[in-house]
């Protein structure tokens, strides 16, 4: 009997198998992460809405979408394109208009106090809370840094943008409006970066710088339930 040479396994079809798998994964998967707009809903409380009355009228910027998808900004009809500039003006309130939201300069003392308080907390913290307090301290220190860089631009604004809508308004308009409101903040932050951070664009900033800009112009949009 002749000795048979062991024949090798034909690997030619391996590519076919791999291609099949590849195509399967291509079809069943999605590549891009979805873009979205984040919103934190208010917690449900037992208290009556009267509690919210604590916010002064001048600090609330009212924006409403009605059933015809018209936009009312402080009870006046405006077009979408006008929104960012209107909001910017009101948040900055450079003329100290007493009908527009209050804003006051942030002082070094109050930030120092905050940092000191965080440091004391950190020393007395239990194991499980240490990380969250350390984070808070880091934030307070960043605030101080922001004050050094931005100086008088770092103001504490008490504004709240209250987004309202009637029942028949379309979601499309609502999102477009929200987009425009957010644009106001973005443009404020960009202006400041141009002024104080060597004119760099948002993408060229470091994480810390971005966070500082967000501290200076803190987004405060609340979504109210629809009006019947």
């Amino acid at each position, binding site marked *: 009997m002749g000795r048979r040479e062991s024949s090798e396994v034909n690997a030619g079809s391996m590519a076919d198998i791999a291609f099949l798998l590849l195509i399967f994964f291509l079809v069943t998967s999605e590549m891009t992460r979805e*873009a*979205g707009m984040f919103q934190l809903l208010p917690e449900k409380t037992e208290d009556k809405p009267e509690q919210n009355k604590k916010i002064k009228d001048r600090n609330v910027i009212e924006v409403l979408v009605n059933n015809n998808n018209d936009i009312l900004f402080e009870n006046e009809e405006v077009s979408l394109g006008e929104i960012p500039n209107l909001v910017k003006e009101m948040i900055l309130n450079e003329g100290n208009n007493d009908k527009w939201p209050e804003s006051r300069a942030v002082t070094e003392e109050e930030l120092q106090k905050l940092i000191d308080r965080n440091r004391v907390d950190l020393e007395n913290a239990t194991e499980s809370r240490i990380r969250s307090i350390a984070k808070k301290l880091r934030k307070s220190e960043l605030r101080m840094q922001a004050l050094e860089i931005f100086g008088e631009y770092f103001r504490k604004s008490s504004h709240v943008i209250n987004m309202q809508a009637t029942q028949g308004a379309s*979601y499309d308009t609502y999102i*477009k409006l929200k987009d425009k409101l957010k644009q106001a903040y973005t443009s404020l932050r960009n202006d400041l970066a141009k002024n104080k951070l060597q004119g760099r664009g948002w993408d060229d900033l470091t994480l810390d710088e971005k966070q500082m800009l967000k501290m200076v112009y803190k987004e405060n949009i609340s979504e109210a*339930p629809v009006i019947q």
Partner: protein
Amino acid sequence: MSKFTGKKKRKDPGISTASLPDIVFMLLFFFMVATKTRENTSSVIVSLPSAMETGKLEDKTPTAYIQLGVPTKKLQKVFGDKTAIQLNDAIKEKKDIRLFLDEKRASIKKNFSAAGPEVALSKSKQMVVCLKIDKKTKLGVVSEVKEELRDASALKVNYIVNEGK
């Protein structure tokens, strides 16, 4: 001398395909790692609105998807042509949202149970509800869903939109 004069006809060697599987496997692994599998099939038609000021969630953020839109042609016979709510794969009622979120939270907890109960709990609290809502939806319906989310204390909401004008 005959060494050089031999008139052997050379055969065309052809390109070896032996490394083809390797290349394809490499592609395969790339796609397996870089993508995630599609979550579910659609029972409602959703055409997303578009916006410029968008952000992206971090990769490992636990999410729950709720879709709002008009049912697909086939399902309209059963569910009508009013805006419907889709949870997982099926069209459900508004009151089912709470149960759905509880189930999601429980499954997130289970996924992270190996990292200890504290991590699991905090992960389940980090859950973001992604809302895919059709453009033409009336805000009355959206608001009802949002109230339902507040009742279930799922407060982190992400409105999914298309990026761009």
